[in-house]
């Protein structure tokens, strides 16, 4: 799995959009997003894209019910060219964030290679279906609890050249909720790994874990974190 780009965005509004993306045939884009879940029933909707040929696949989602709303999606089918990815939410006053990952040499994630949990668990264990997969995981804390760290850290669960990499994105609007959104490159084994956060908080947490299988060996270039562009 070769990482080509990473985009993040956060704040209130009916939607957030990435900067311009150049997608080649065979590229795959993965999205995780969540919001504060301040009102029961609010959602983070499936993303849309202006990239030619884009086909969006729903992986996991959660409608707010005294917890954070959110979801995970994959997008493939690109025929080349430039465009953007937009992630909407059902309430423009909710505070939301997203992490968008663009890859080549990857297979679009499917629901069967993903997991979701809601409740008091600070982590969700997941077993990748193959070695070398990329994992995206996101944790949304409705209580905005105590200071915590993400787990696993890049130094213990990434083996690719040129070195361990991860893209932790944290967001914690005061008094609303906290979000941690990460991607970890090639998994070292096919054993179960616990993804999430450490600490003593009790949430409730909304967690998404998505496995992205590689379709061929590829070096992972340096990660470029690009600024978000508001709609």
């Amino acid at each position, binding site marked *: 799995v070769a990482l080509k780009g990473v985009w993040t965005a956060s704040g209130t509004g009916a939607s957030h959009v990435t900067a311009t993306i150049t997608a080649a045939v065979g590229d795959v884009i993965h999205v995780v997003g969540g919001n504060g879940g301040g009102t029961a029933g609010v959602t983070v909707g499936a993303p849309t894209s202006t990239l030619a040929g884009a086909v969006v696949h729903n992986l996991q989602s959660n409608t707010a019910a005294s917890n954070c709303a959110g979801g995970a999606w994959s997008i493939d089918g690109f025929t080349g060219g430039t465009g953007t990815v937009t992630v909407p939410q059902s309430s423009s006053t909710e505070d939301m964030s997203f992490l968008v990952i663009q890859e080549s040499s990857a297979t679009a994630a499917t629901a*069967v290679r993903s997991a979701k949990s809601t409740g008091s668990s600070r982590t*969700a264990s997941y077993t990748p279906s193959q070695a070398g997969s990329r994992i995206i995981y996101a944790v949304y804390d409705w209580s905005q609890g105590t200071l915590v760290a993400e787990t696993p850290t890049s130094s213990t669960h990434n083996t690719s050249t040129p070195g361990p990499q991860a893209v932790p994105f944290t967001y914690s609007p005061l008094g609303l909720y906290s979000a941690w959104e990460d991607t970890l490159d090639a998994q070292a084994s096919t054993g179960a790994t616990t993804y999430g956060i450490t600490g003593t908080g009790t949430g409730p947490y909304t967690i998404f874990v998505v496995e992205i299988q590689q379709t061929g060996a590829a070096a992972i270039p340096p990660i470029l974190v690009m600024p978000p562009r508001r709609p």
Partner: protein
Amino acid sequence: VTVVQNIPNTRLIGQQTFNFTNTAQAWNNATLVIDRTINGGLNSLTTADTLTLSVDRSTDGGTTWRPVAAITCIGGVLVTKGVTLASETLGVGVGNVGDGFRVTAVPSTPVRVAGTFTYE
């Protein structure tokens, strides 16, 4: 058609496994929901107590099992923004006709569980 399978009200003294029949079609998700509020349930414990819930998948009728996902729930009455946490959920993808699942619960101290495992 959504299929709901019940996890009967059960007092766990140690590890216990609940098995479920194979799926009849390729669903999108299977979701485990555990009720925290039953008498003797998670809400009756302390925050130092835990209950680990794991989901395994079998594609050969239960001969071999592969771990899919797991969570570690915290005991006690957990109140956030004035709302008491009432349930725990764990969802996993279901890809193929015939996939079977089992749920294994491991409590740190005796506790009751009850809930559902739903194919959606």
